[in-house]
């Protein structure tokens, strides 16, 4: 393999790994948008909460209290982050989304900004501003194939993302609840007339989205500088991904997430890491001009 080919393959792999992380963050945003037509600005902080939950599980609870090996501790922390994310989603739904369901689209948006400020500063008070060192035991294991290197952590990230996407897809396709959820996304009132409780399903969507954010936090923890504001750095990009993929469109979001990851990897290689956000958002604006419906056109009759 020539130098250039090796470089291209290596950066593409890095990009896919990064893209999977973004997809995990963006999926929750796109789900909530698909079903509720709402933007959740507190999503970033769900990711941060997930990251902290995972950190304390992996470094304190699992290894010191339960006596698990490091690898097991990290895997357990993914599950804990999922649970914590889901609980947080339940709480925010009850406090903000459910009471503000009727009325204009602006109020829930501002309310989630308030929740975001609250969560960030609560964590700041709890954990302080100094970054935590969150090492995944899998980051130390490097796999080498020919001249291509990657860590076991990146394999784990891709596997967990793929599993989450598959589980989400199976849930939407093959279960009754999934079908009901798609019905609510299409037409809330008609679904209600068919005996589906839209409020319950909207709550369920927010819980699923927040659980995904929690797992995303656990996966991102070792990558980010873990402070109470860590999630915010990723979520702005996740917003861009959701738009590039087409609001509320799950397939589009996955495609756009991986695309942005790959573009980012090559931007770092050829232009420098300082320009990442610039490149991504110029792409976003170009996308909005050329094709405002996103990569995969939104089909009105089905957007989850």
């Amino acid at each position, binding site marked *: 393999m020539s130098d250039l080919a090796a470089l291209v393959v290596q950066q593409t792999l890095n990009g896919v790994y990064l893209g999977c992380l973004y997809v995990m963050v963006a999926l929750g945003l796109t789900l909530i948008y698909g079903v509720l037509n709402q933007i959740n600005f507190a999503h970033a902080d769900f990711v941060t909460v997930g990251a902290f939950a995972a950190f304390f599980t992996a470094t304190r609870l699992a290894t010191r209290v339960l006596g698990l090996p490091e690898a097991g501790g990290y895997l357990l922390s993914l599950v804990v982050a999922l649970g914590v994310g889901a609980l947080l989603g339940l709480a925010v739904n009850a406090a903000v989304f459910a009471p503000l369901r009727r009325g204009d689209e602006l109020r829930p948006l501002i309310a989630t900004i308030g929740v975001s400020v609250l969560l960030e*500063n609560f964590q700041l008070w709890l954990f302080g501003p100094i970054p935590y060192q969150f090492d995944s035991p899998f980051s130390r294991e490097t796999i080498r194939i020919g001249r291509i290197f990657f860590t076991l952590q990146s394999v784990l990230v891709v596997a967990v993302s793929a599993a989450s996407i598959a589980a989400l897809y199976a849930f939407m396709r093959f279960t009754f609840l999934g079908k009901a959820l798609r019905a609510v996304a299409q037409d809330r009132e008609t679904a209600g007339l068919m005996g589906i409780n839209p409020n319950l399903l909207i709550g369920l969507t927010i819980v699923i989205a927040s659980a995904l954010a929690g797992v995303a936090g656990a996966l991102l923890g070792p990558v980010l500088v873990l402070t109470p504001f860590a999630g915010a750095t990723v979520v702005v990009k996740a917003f861009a991904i959701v738009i590039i993929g087409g609001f509320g469109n799950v397939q589009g979001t996955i495609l756009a997430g991986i695309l942005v990851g790959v573009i980012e990897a090559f931007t770092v290689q050829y232009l420098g890491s300082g320009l990442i*956000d610039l490149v991504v958002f110029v792409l976003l604006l170009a996308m909005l001009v050329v094709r405002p419906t996103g990569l995969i056109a939104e089909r009105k009759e089905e957007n989850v």
Partner: protein
Amino acid sequence: MIAILAVAALPWLITTPYWRGILVVCAMNVLLALSLNLVLGYTGQLNLGQSAFFGIGAYVSTILVKTYGWNFWLAAAAAVGAAGLLGLALAAFAVRLRGHYLAIASLGFAVITYQVLINWEKVTEGVRGIYGIVPPVRGTLALFYVVAGIAVVVYVLMDNLVRSPVGDTLRSVREDEISAASLGVNAAVWKAFAFGICAGIAGLAGCFYPGFVGTLVPDAFNIVESFTMMAMVIVGGMGTMIGPVIGAIVLTFLPELLRGFGESRLMIYGLALTLVVLFMPGGMVQAWLAVKARWSS
């Protein structure tokens, strides 16, 4: 008239330098909230890019004064023009996009501006920042009078604007673009008009910021600032003239008054913001009107 006297009397009631500084910040926030309200409240366009216009005003005026030795007021005029042009550019997107798409596009606008401020080090000094910026007038008190004076003028002009037929036109774009078009309203032109003015005023507010702080770093124009400005408009009551003014005053002073709570003050701020949205749907102005109506009946 009473309002003008109240503004003039304020610095005598508040004499400590620290609180006088907060007054200047408050006057700037009133300007920012007023300008955002024209786009958000009257024209109904979700704009999360306000921090970009504020930042452009600050950087253009400062660079013209410091590097090219321009007179401050001339530089301020150029900065307002630059911010206004950027507003027109964003309006080009607003013509095509609606609702949340516009919100994210304008957010993207703010991110790009922020990144340019960080990366274009030759001109903006990047994250190192520009230091030793002198305010256009000497002393916090004088600066307050200048900014507050501008805020009062802007308020009066805008109040006249929204009560004129132009205001009705903007509201028609907000309520129903298609019906407005059928009555001969060119929505694209009026959106551009609203965005241009909004950005220009935000740029004007930006001209005074660096002189007041003395330094200029890109972080002051992070996208979070756009959220804060939007919160001011919503908490006060968008689509009313006095609402954003009240929102700006409350949300400037609230975090300061909560300083006694130490670390937890921003938590309370976040909680207060959420609660206002939950329990005062139309903002504080409408809540007040509702209370008054109940009391008089």
